[in-house]
Every structure is written in C-alpha cells, then in structure tokens.
C-alpha cells in the first residue's frame, strides 16, 4: 500500500501498462483458485472426488473390464463370469444390434437404409457448417434429400417396396427425429411471425393452432394419428401410419418452436425493424435479413431444448405399436433365452440417446459462440 505520505512510484500521467499478477496462472494456481478457494469449496471438491472414486471404478468394471461380449444365451453369458450377474452381458446387444438399428427392415434391402444415412450426413454438413466451400449449391441437394431418402426407404419406382411398419429401431428414431426437427423449425418460425403479425385473422389462426397443440399431450396426438384420423379421411383411403406420426410430431414441435421464436422476436429491439424499414426494405426482407437472424440467435438455447425434447419423445411411438429402440428392447427382453438383461438394454438405449442429444447441445454452444459479435449495441 502506498500511504498518503509515500511518494508515488510514477509521476501522474506516466504510469505504464503492467502485466497482470502471475499468482493466478499455472496448474497449482488454477486449482487453488477453482477448487480450494474457500472451506466450502474444499468440502465440495473432496465430496466430488469421493463420489467419482466410488462410482466410476465399479461402473467401469461392470460395463467394460468384466463384461462378456460373446455368448449364445444368458445362461452361457453368466456362466462365463466369476460371479453370475457381476458384469454386463453385451453379447445380447451384439447379437441383436441389427434389430436395434434397422428394426424389421428386410435384410437384403438394408443397404438402402445405410445409403440414406450416408446421404443424411451429406445433407446435414452443409446445414450445420457454414464455412463449407460452395455451401450455396449444396442446398439444392439438401432440399432434395427428404424425397430421395423417402424413395430409398419406402421403395417403389424401381426399388422393392418396404412397408413402413417394418421400420424400427434407431433408424425409426432418426427418421422421426430428423423429419420433426427439420420441418418444425420453418413451420414454427412461420407461426411465430403469424402470431406477431398485424393481420388479425392470421394472428388468431396462429394463436389457436399453437395453443391447441400445446394444450394436448403428444401421446394424445399420436393416438389421434393412429386411430381417429381414419374418421376424418374419406373411406377407403389408407394413410400411412408413419406419415401420420411424422405430421403429428412435426406439428407438436412446431408449436413449441413458435413460442420459443416469439420470445426471440420480442428480444430484438423495435429499432432494428424500424431501421430496416427506413432503408426501404420490404417486410419480408427486413424479417429475413435483420429481425429473424437476431431472434433466432437469441432463441438457440430454447430451440435446441425443444429439439432435444422432440428427439427423446420419439420413443412415445412405442405406445401406438411402433418399434422404436425401446420397443425393440422390450421385445428382446421377452425372449426366454435372454430374459433378465434389462440393465444392458436400457443402458445401451440411453447411451444412444445421450450421444445424440449431447451432440445437439454442444453444437448449439458452438453456434452461440460463433454468432457472438461482441457486446450488443445499446438496446
């Protein structure tokens, strides 16, 4: 401390820029600052270490170290262990992997599912990664992808037709999830714009739609899709069940996306649209170029949250008799040769969902960071 009497080390106006104190750098510095900065923090750190130490080794032992990967039945599997049931029996999952992935899709046609998946990857990359060279041209392909994949999966036009009730497993999850996600975003944005528009009829229609869909459980909508739609359709027409489910899931997610985006729209200062107007941009150009990019950026956490929810809700189709991974899992557990391996099945399915959802969550963080353009201008 420099007391009032002590001479200042620098004359006023000559103080140089100094580097920050070094105490805060290095591993020890980091640990001291982040893990042991207060008694409470010390206790938390020790508790955390104790918890991890007591959970991770047994888990790793069960799932990896002692687990059995080849066996023909549960009995054989447990027989291979020092103590029966002491570890995971992945042989069960391994033997049924193709069922978990493809459901009952005909074996000789499964290359079509694989090809669709590869095409899906090529369709997703240009959407998610904006520095891809020639990204603009890829969008034609992205727009064509749903039709291409639909044709590949369902068949017809030269390919052997496959009934959609043979779809199942992760493939079904991906179909419902990807369709729901990619169609609910544009529909949700349109609904949000409609709900905030100045045209009363349009506004009321959008409000009614959103509130109705949000007010009904997805399960109920799926039941409507599987049973009641027949009453509304002309007799004799059959409308594919999967198609109905896709529509219901998409509409359901759209209503939620609409509300998330509406929140984002409210977060964009009114002056933004006014500035766009004052430059002579039309309503649609102002929305597309100025308002929506900012509103969507604000809405990213909510949108991804909705997508993750939708993705996991795809498991609800189990209730109307579709064989999503959970359905396959339950059917597998009913097999007398293997019964009793519920932990393996549900952990496996949980890991699949976790990987997908965690991926979405990380991508949204990446997107938020990328779109951060410094402190916002005064609102």
């Amino acid at each position, binding site marked *: 401390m420099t007391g009032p009497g002590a001479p200042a080390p620098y004359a006023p106006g000559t103080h140089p820029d100094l580097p920050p104190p070094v105490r805060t750098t290095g591993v020890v510095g980091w640990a001291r600052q982040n893990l042991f900065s207060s008694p409470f923090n010390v206790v938390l750190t020790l508790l955390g270490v104790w918890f991890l130490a007591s959970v991770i080794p047994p888990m790793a032992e069960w799932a990896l170290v002692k687990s059995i990967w080849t066996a023909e039945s549960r009995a054989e599997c447990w027989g291979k262990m020092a103590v029966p049931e002491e570890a995971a029996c992945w042989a069960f999952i391994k033997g049924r992997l193709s069922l978990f992935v493809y459901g009952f899709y005909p074996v000789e046609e499964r290359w079509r599912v694989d090809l669709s998946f590869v095409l899906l990857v090529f369709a997703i990359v240009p959407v998610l990664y904006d520095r891809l060279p020639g990204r603009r041209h890829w969008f034609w392909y992205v727009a064509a992808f749903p039709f291409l994949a639909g044709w590949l999966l369902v068949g017809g036009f030269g390919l052997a037709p496959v009934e959609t009730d043979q779809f199942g497993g992760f493939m079904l999850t991906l179909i419902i999830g990807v369709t729901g996600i990619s169609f609910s975003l544009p529909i949700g944005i349109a609904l949000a714009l409609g709900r905030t528009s100045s045209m009363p009829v349009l506004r009321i229609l959008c409000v009614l739609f959103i509130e109705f869909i949000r007010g009904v459980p997805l399960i109920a909508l799926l039941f409507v899709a599987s049973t009641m739609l027949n009453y509304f359709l002309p007799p004799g027409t059959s409308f594919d069940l999967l198609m109905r489910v896709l529509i219901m899931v998409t509409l359901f997610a759209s209503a939620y996306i609409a509300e998330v985006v509406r929140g984002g729209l409210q977060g964009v200062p009114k002056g933004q649209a006014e500035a766009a*107007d*004052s*430059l002579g941009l039309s309503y649609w150009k102002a929305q597309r*170029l100025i308002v929506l990019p900012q509103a969507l950026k604000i809405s990213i956490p909510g949108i991804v949250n909705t997508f993750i929810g939708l993705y996991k809700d795809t498991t609800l189709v189990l209730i109307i008799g579709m064989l999503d991974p959970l359905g396959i899992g339950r059917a597998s557990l009913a097999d007398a040769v293997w019964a009793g391996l519920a932990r393996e099945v549900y952990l496996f399915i949980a890991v699949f969902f976790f990987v997908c959802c965690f991926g979405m969550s990380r991508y949204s963080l990446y997107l938020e960071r990328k779109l951060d*353009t410094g402190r916002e201008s005064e609102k």
Partner: protein
Amino acid sequence: MATASDTAGPRSGAPAVNTSETIISIEGMHKWFGQFHVLKDINLDVKRGERIVICGPSGSGKSTLIRCINRLEEHQQGSIVVEGTELTGNLKNIEIIRSEVGMVFQSFNLFPHLTVLENCTLALVWVRKMPRAKAQEIAMGYLERVRIPEQAEKYPGQLSGGQQQRVAIARSLCMNPRIMLFDEPTSALDPEMIKEVLDVMVELAESGMTMLVVTHEMGFATAVAHRVIFMDAGEIIEQNEPSEFFNHPRHERTKLFLSQILSH
C-alpha cells in the same frame, strides 16, 4: 466533400436556400395514438436544400412528426407529400419514399449481427439490387466520408457510440437519399463524442442536403439551420430563422423552454 459548398459557410449563419422547390409538404396533418392526440394540425413545407432544426420539450411529438415523414408512423388526417408522392397505405410508394429518405436514430439501430460494411451495403444489395462489389465500393466511399473506413470489418458492438452513429449516417447516405431525418442523433452520446457526429452533420449540410434534425444542440442549429421549429404538446408553436428564434422568441412557452435548456 463531393458537392461545392456554395450554399453555406459553416458557423456563419446559414444563407437562404437557393431553390424554391418544395420537397416535403405537410398539410393539416393530425395523428393520434389511440385516444391520445399526439400531433395537431401540422402544416410544414420544406424546400429542397433546406435545413430545419426541430426542438421542444420531451414528449411534444418531435420524433413522431419526423417518423411520419417516412411512414414509420401513420398519420390519420391531412396529407404528407414527399418528392411529389403522397404517403398513403400504398406499400410500393412507402418503400420508394423510404429509400429516398434517410433516417438516423437516437439509439443508432445498427444491425449488430452484420459488420459495419455489411450494414452499409445491405440496402444497396437488397433494395437497389446492386452487385456486391459495387455496393462495397460505394459504402467504403461513405465510410471514408464519415472518417471510419478502418472499422469496416468490425461489428457495431465493437465501436464507440460516436463511431456507431457515424456508421449509421454512412449507412443512410449509401442510399443516396434526397432528405435526411435525424432524431436526436447525439442524445445518447458521451460529451466527447458529440462533436465528431456533429462535424459529420455539418459537412453533410455544406453539401446541400435537405435535413430535418430533432436536436437540442443549439450551436448546431445556429450554425447550420435555415429555420428552427419549436413544438410543444403536439403543435408547432413557432418557427423562425435561428438568430431571431434564439434572441427574440415570441411565445411564452418558447421563452420558458429556451431558458430551461440554456440555464446550465
């Protein structure tokens, strides 16, 4: 500056306007917000090249008046004619007028997700349908004119308030407007930044731009304006050329207002 400055010498009082062509004509205009009568019987003719400063207490309707001129607000009675086109519900007319009338806001309203250069080229590309390269060339020209070409690749959030407001002016100028509207362009700025913005505005005035400026910067009004308009409670109370206006206000409310803003 691009145009010869034969119309005005800065800070020497503005000489008379050199044309008599009316560019904005407002007649018997009224506006209400719900039940609230915010603008009452506004009559105002603006000549090409004329520079008008509008002042008055907060809430007197100054912003609303100039926002009516490019239809950010809709008037309910009377007429507004800009460049020979009457402002009605016709969307095409509104878009045409808006691209001819530049507007600068108190809170800048730059687009935070676009760079400074993109802010400036946006309307050229999407409204004027200009090729990007040409638009960038024009935008850089105006950014140089407001003396911040080196900030072109930055985002608005990375600039100071004064720099942002100069970008906002450049953004409007890119559209080559016939009229510029300013709504308290310096009110949100720290004192040391006010001058850099006013300097740009003075230069713009010298180039012969028609300007309507809502401001309480009386130095600017004296140096640049042909006419000062005083508004209160939605009415134009009095208008005069600057020295008369400041030295010999006629109305009690004008005197009161001037004594308030000049008292500190």
